[in-house]
């Protein structure tokens, strides 16, 4: 694993979010170093996606502070929020590609709408992004004509075409088989190194996250209960970390108990 720069790109302090009576985030704290691949782990329904959307300014947190490159993002800091949106991008769980636009048009969209580049420059940069993700042959195809893996790469091409400093990945491997999960994490790690962006990933796939990430955090019941390196995570004796990390082993024990023959009845 490469050395990670020590300056912080993102700081989250005491973040709270509720939906009516349901408290999802109950004071989340963590820091993401610049240039790192930071993964937030947690079981389904732990609030990982809500956390990511609060940081990405898609949802408004009820309380707490988010700092991007040292600048606070809040309702009143419109300029800081615009700057943050310009320098970050989001890769959705279902890719959120525009199905009425071709692959090239999907990638060109953020450039067309947020920059003053000429049509020729936009086309060149979009094709370049497609080429880097090895899907330039599909430039004229619609998302529905692409395979699941190609759609994921197209979504990543759209996310990186604006050359962001921070990319959010919301459950990038949800619903994929182990081989595809590996492929997606390899893709994230490879392009994160290649393009030098900071990646904030939320997932519940422990094994892949531990191999690919520079730092991991575990979200449980609305709070971060562990933050550290993958090796620290593997060595941690924190009960929640252990139960999450050793879930496969626990499953094996549970199944063995079910399959164990009942004791011989002597009566």
């Amino acid at each position, binding site marked *: 694993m490469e050395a990670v720069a020590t300056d912080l790109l993102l700081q989250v302090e005491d973040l709270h979010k509720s939906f009516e009576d349901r408290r999802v985030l109950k004071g989340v704290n963590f820091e993401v170093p610049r240039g790192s691949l930071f993964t937030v782990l947690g079981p389904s329904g732990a609030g990982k996606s809500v956390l990511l*959307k609060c940081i990405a300014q*898609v949802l408004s947190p009820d309380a707490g502070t988010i700092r991007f490159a040292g600048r606070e993002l809040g309702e009143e800091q419109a300029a800081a929020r615009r700057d943050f949106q310009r320098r970050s991008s989001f890769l*959705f769980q279902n890719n959120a*590609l525009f*199905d009425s636009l071709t692959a090239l048009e999907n990638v060109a969209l*953020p450039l067309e*709408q947020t920059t003053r580049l000429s049509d020729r420059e936009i086309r060149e940069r979009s094709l370049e992004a497609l080429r880097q993700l090895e899907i330039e042959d599909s430039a004229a195809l619609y998302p529905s004509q692409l395979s699941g893996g190609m759609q994921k790469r197209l979504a990543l091409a759209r996310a990186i075409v604006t050359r962001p400093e921070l990319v959010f990945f919301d459950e990038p491997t949800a619903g994929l088989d182990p081989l595809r999960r590996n492929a997606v994490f390899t893709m994230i790690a490879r392009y994160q190194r290649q393009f030098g962006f900071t990646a904030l990933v939320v997932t519940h796939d422990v094994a892949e996250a531990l191999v690919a990430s520079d730092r991991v955090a575990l979200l449980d019941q609305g709070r971060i209960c562990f933050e550290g390196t993958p090796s620290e995570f593997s060595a941690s004796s924190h009960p929640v970390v252990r139960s999450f990390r050793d879930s496969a082993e626990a499953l094996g024990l549970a199944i063995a108990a079910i399959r164990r023959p009942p004791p011989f009845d002597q009566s």
Partner: protein
Amino acid sequence: MLHLLGRQTLRIVMGFGDFALFTGRSFRAAAHSRRLIRRVCRAIYEQGTLCLPVILIVGLFTGLVLGLQGYYVLNRFGSEGLLGALVSLCLVREMAPVLAALMLIGQAGSALAAELGIQRNSEQIVALETMGVSSHGYLVAPRLLAALVAFPLQTALFVAVGLWGGSLSGSLLLGVESGLYWSSVEEAVRSRDVRECFLKAATFGLLAISICAYHGFHADRCRSATGARAVSAATTRAVVHSCIMVLVADYVITSFLV
């Protein structure tokens, strides 16, 4: 009972306020939206060219029916020569803007509500916001601006085809002299009537498209359903509400202008 009535009233007032803010925000976003003209042209194509067949068919048959009904009424008083005036005034002042708007709601408005609903469901709208692109400016504003152009043009076409339909049934089938029909049209219609017609068409267009866009854009707010059912419910609400509002607006505008 009183509590329920108050709550419902508040809900409706808040709904109107939210809708007004949505429309205002969309127009404001248009000022900052890039490559807007291109998307407005695309929306004019969707609301104009794609809806042309339905406008032509409904316009023609409205004119044919008006010609027939008008002839039998006027015939009783020996005033068949005024058939052109009756058909033209009915079309220009009332029927063309209303019927064209209802047809466009059925075709373009429902499609818009469904499209935005699906985009909301599949997080495409949220994706725009995360890119720093105003979803109001990108998705709604071009459609609103296009409605200001497409609805009056479609209404004008409706009037033209309807007049021709009236002439067909009056002159060709019932024997009213063609020259008499068209001179009666020319004498009856004044520039004030045409202005009123275009004013109504633009207002109905703006109302219909903004209501359809509003419901589609907020398809996720549906409490009784989620997913595809929420989109279907939003589309139904969009069509029903915009039809009602077009008829209400028609009454209000007519009462001020008559």
